[in-house]
């Protein structure tokens, strides 16, 4: 066997990174790239028996109870997609500020916030808003860029507002309370949503013709539509209260709360007479699809980190980062955020979280900072990478449902002001950790 350990951890880290990037560029699946690199270096450093490290990592990863919250929240989103709850929500929200410029944009953002507190996945919500709200805004004559930005940035909020799968995975990796993470992320997420609302209002004030008011006929048509508010709002909101209430109140674990959420949406759908066996079956299948993908990225990444840790790599990176920052807490956080940003351009967020957090979180704790706060910082970082080129998933999801003439380039251009707002929110949370930790 070739003795990689003779080369020293510095060179081997570089080799691992190079191999990983090279394999990724060929278009090989992320889950298998990380898994394979883990195997190759386990064998190269320790000898053939070390492959056992990888398989035992697979076992412990899939046997985690908390992780079960992921498919349940995915299923909640899948059920929402297949019921008319979102449509009714949007119709009900049409009453809000409909006679001011930018009103529909604000409505869309409000719907996005409510939907976000019912589901924690990126994708589903953007697709929903892209089908519901985007055509409405375009029809009214909204500026294309404004409408696109509202839809994609609003939809991406799903991963920031609790219950968010990004936070669940962070909590698992960093070994901190997910309930605390949900408490901490609420205010920053709400703040970000408010930034968007203020932006839309100010923009519409400055350029009223880019965010027109619906015509009188249209308003009359909306009034004629008989929205059953109890049906539209009461049960979905009750579900939100139940899910978040049981987590915040410490009544149920996150997994149990997510099961309550699924039951709540199922009941809401049943009351609306939309519950069929087909809907349940399709939602379960959609869950299988999404989770197989998410969890295997996790399996690969956790295997790689496990092997790297045994090789002493985590200590190496820790020393490297600390020597770069000279032990300065703020500088360390900035370096980490730069690494997160760069990785976020190439890897899926699950991979980013599982690869970096086992290394970053001990450093954060060692420097006397709060890992809960860092979780919120991470989450905001991922918000930025959801919208940023070249791989911003939000843009791709929106593209899949947007009218044909809206190009990917236009979507990314439209997102620039929203990315700036995200960076402002991120800077505020970094500069004022109380924003995330006021409740402590």
């Amino acid at each position: 066997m070739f003795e990689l350990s003779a080369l020293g951890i510095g060179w081997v880290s570089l080799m691992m990174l190079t191999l990983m990037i090279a394999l990724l560029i060929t278009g090989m699946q992320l889950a298998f790239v990380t898994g394979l690199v883990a195997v190759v270096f386990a064998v190269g450093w320790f000898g053939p028996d070390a492959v056992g490290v990888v398989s035992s990592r697979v076992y412990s990863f899939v046997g985690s109870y908390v992780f079960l919250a992921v498919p349940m929240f995915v299923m909640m989103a899948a059920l929402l997609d297949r019921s008319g709850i979102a449509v009714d929500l949007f119709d009900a929200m049409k009453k809000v500020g409909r006679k001011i410029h930018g009103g529909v944009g604000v409505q869309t953002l409000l719907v996005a916030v409510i939907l976000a507190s019912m589901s924690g996945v990126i994708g589903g919500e953007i697709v929903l808003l892209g089908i519901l709200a985007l055509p409405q805004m375009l029809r009214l004559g909204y500026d294309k860029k404004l409408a696109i930005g509202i839809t994609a940035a609003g939809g991406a909020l799903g991963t920031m507002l609790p219950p968010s799968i990004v936070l669940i995975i962070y909590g698992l990796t960093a070994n901190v309370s997910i309930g605390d993470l949900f408490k901490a992320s609420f205010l920053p997420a709400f703040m970000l949503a408010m930034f968007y609302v203020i932006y839309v209002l100010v923009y519409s004030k400055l350029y009223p013709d880019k965010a027109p008011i619906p015509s009188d006929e249209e308003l009359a048509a909306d009034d004629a539509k008989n929205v059953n508010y109890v049906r539209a709002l009461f049960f979905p909101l009750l579900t939100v209260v139940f899910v978040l209430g049981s987590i915040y109140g410490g009544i149920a674990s996150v997994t149990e709360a997510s099961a309550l959420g699924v039951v709540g949406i199922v009941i809401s759908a049943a009351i609306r007479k939309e519950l069929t066996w087909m809907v349940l079956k399709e939602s379960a299948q959609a869950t299988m699809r999404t989770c197989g993908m998410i969890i295997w990225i996790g399996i690969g990444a956790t295997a790689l980190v496990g092997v790297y840790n045994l090789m002493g790599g985590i200590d190496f990176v820790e020393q490297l980062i600390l020597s770069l920052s000279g032990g300065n807490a703020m500088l360390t956080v900035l370096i980490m955020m730069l690494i997160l940003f760069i990785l976020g351009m190439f890897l899926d967020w699950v991979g980013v979280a599982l690869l970096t957090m086992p290394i970053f979180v001990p450093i954060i704790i060692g420097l006397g900072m709060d890992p809960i706060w860092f979780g919120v910082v991470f989450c905001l970082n991922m918000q930025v990478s959801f919208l940023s080129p070249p791989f911003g998933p939000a843009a791709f999801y929106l593209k899949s449902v947007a009218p044909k003439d809206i190009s990917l380039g236009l979507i990314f251009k439209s997102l620039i002001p929203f990315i700036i707002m995200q960076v402002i929110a991120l800077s505020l949370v970094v500069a004022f950790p109380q924003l995330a930790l006021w409740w402590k």
Partner: protein
Amino acid sequence: MSAEKNNPLNELDHQPRNWLDKIIFKLGDAASIFYLFTVVITFYEIVMRYAFNAPTIWVHETATFVGGILFVLGGSYALATNRHVRIVLLYDSVLDRTQNFLNVFHHIMGLIFTASLIYASYYMAESAFYAPWGEPRLETSGSAWDPAFPAYTKLIILMVFVIMFFQFLFHLIQDLVGIRGRK
């Protein structure tokens, strides 16, 4: 172009490619119902605990076990339907012929990965089914209820890696035949 590949609504890219993939696809769709089962029993536990003050001893471990199996199976399912996340920026911009060669390369890498994991998870499963002194016994969870779920999970991990090995093998054969056919 990469928008097409990442398009979640584009079902054409996600069709199973051969009989094995088709079986896994069907099996995965059928098994997905068990996600609902984990919801139902977790809800049952909450009701029992708060309404009847009678927490169960089996829900927690059963839900974790069922979820774990679905997670492992999901990898094979995603492979059968080509849903694993990849970076397609370069992959999408090369010629079809080059893409074929890249696919062949991916399958070979996949074969190396799954073969190593079959080796590793075989030993992991073996020690869950036999005591170190060679006597058959099942590894249990060690809780008050003490089910043999760890042993079963380890066996299923081994089985899924074996299945994935054959998925990669069949994809490799299909793509090699495709390359030869084109010449």
